[in-house]
């Protein structure tokens, strides 16, 4: 685990908390820890308590759903400069998807319970954190909606058929 001073720097330098007031940042440091995940390790599991969120510093994380009898479906990948996980701020604080390290991942994790308590006590901190999470959640929702549009169709299955015919 890094020193509080280093953690503060990491928070300052990460795009997600860019420009945060130093007093509020120091409150964040108290709930933060440096973490490292090897390939295949999970940062979050569907249905389990969402006790953390992560500022990703390096590597790639796959947000995925396990499908029995098939490869897990990767819904989205996330990497350096992004924030992972918002179930910690929404009751009942349970993760919605599996988050697996697709490469070696370095991240700063934040203890959700710790941060929620501080946010309750200090509305300024609460507002500051939510002010940054809400646009991110909006962005994710918009991206997910675009993704389901399947903009570049037609379906692969159809195309493969026509290839056979031409074959």
């Amino acid at each position: 685990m890094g020193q509080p001073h280093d953690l503060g720097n990491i928070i300052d330098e990460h795009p997600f908390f860019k420009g945060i007031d130093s007093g509020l940042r120091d409150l964040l440091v108290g709930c933060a820890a440096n973490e490292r995940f090897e390939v295949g390790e999970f940062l979050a599991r569907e249905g389990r308590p969402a006790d953390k969120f992560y500022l990703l510093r390096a590597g790639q994380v796959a947000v995925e759903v396990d499908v029995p009898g098939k490869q897990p479906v990767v819904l989205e990948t996330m990497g350096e400069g992004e924030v992972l996980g918002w179930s910690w701020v929404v009751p009942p604080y349970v993760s919605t998807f599996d988050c697996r390290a697709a490469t070696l991942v370095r991240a700063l994790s934040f203890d959700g319970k710790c941060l929620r308590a501080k946010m309750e006590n200090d509305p300024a901190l609460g507002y500051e954190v939510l002010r940054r999470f809400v646009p991110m959640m909006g962005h994710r929702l918009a991206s997910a909606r675009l993704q389901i549009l399947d903009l570049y169709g037609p379906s692969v299955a159809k195309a493969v058929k026509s290839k056979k015919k031409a074959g």
Partner: protein
Amino acid sequence: MTAPIPDPMLPRPFRIEKVRRDLSDTFTMELVPAEGGEFTFAAGQFNMLYVFGVGEVPISISGDPGDRSVLVHTTRAVGAVTKALDALKAGEVVGVRGPYGTPWPVEAAFGHDLVFVAGGVGLAPLRPAIYQAMANRERFGRVVVFYGARTPEDILFKRELERWRGRFDMSVHVTVDRATGKWSGNVGVVTNLVAKGGFDPSATMAFVCGPEVMMRYSAAALEKRGVARPSIYMSMERNMKCGCGLCGHCQWGPHFVCKDGPVFRYDRIADLLSIREL
């Protein structure tokens, strides 16, 4: 009247030199003028391709504007004419009218970071501009390609993307909407790549090409990132029968997409993009 006006509706015969299958429904043809000569075009322009007795279709040019000896078209077989094109083999002849339309303003982007945002087969109309940028590499700051495809199997010009990614003077980011097989790259929409940056928004020119919805949201992502509207260009698509402003089909508000476009500056069309069924 002096010299007779050349008839813009008469196709010029080109022989197919080579056909390469890019994707299950997408192919690239190399054409040379059947009667000899060269073909000159600017990156972003298109031709009307005629299949004998079947019809014509507007297809953007996907080759290198620096090479006048060969005309390259990448086509997705989705309609009657494009399917008939797909059925042609090397040695056969197609008719060509063009080049038509406005180009990507590659030279106007000198001195800037140059960002390409492509979706699906929208990479094809951008490729000539990428070639032109790489031929003038020292004139640009960063050169960045963001490319979104449906699945890993739908990535167009895959080897070339890999080759570009291997260069030290260009960054290439690819994402797919749906991961399949052993894909270990990015998953998510192309706008997510734009949002992550990697260019100086205050000194960036961005060229966007793909389905209209993808272009609208990509332009919005670029703008959100700080790229000014007049620095964003996109290539529009509408029904075309003539390609040269005579048939009226491609009208879009006050514009003829065939001659006022297909490449438009975003600030000049942003209002039109939000009007339904225009």
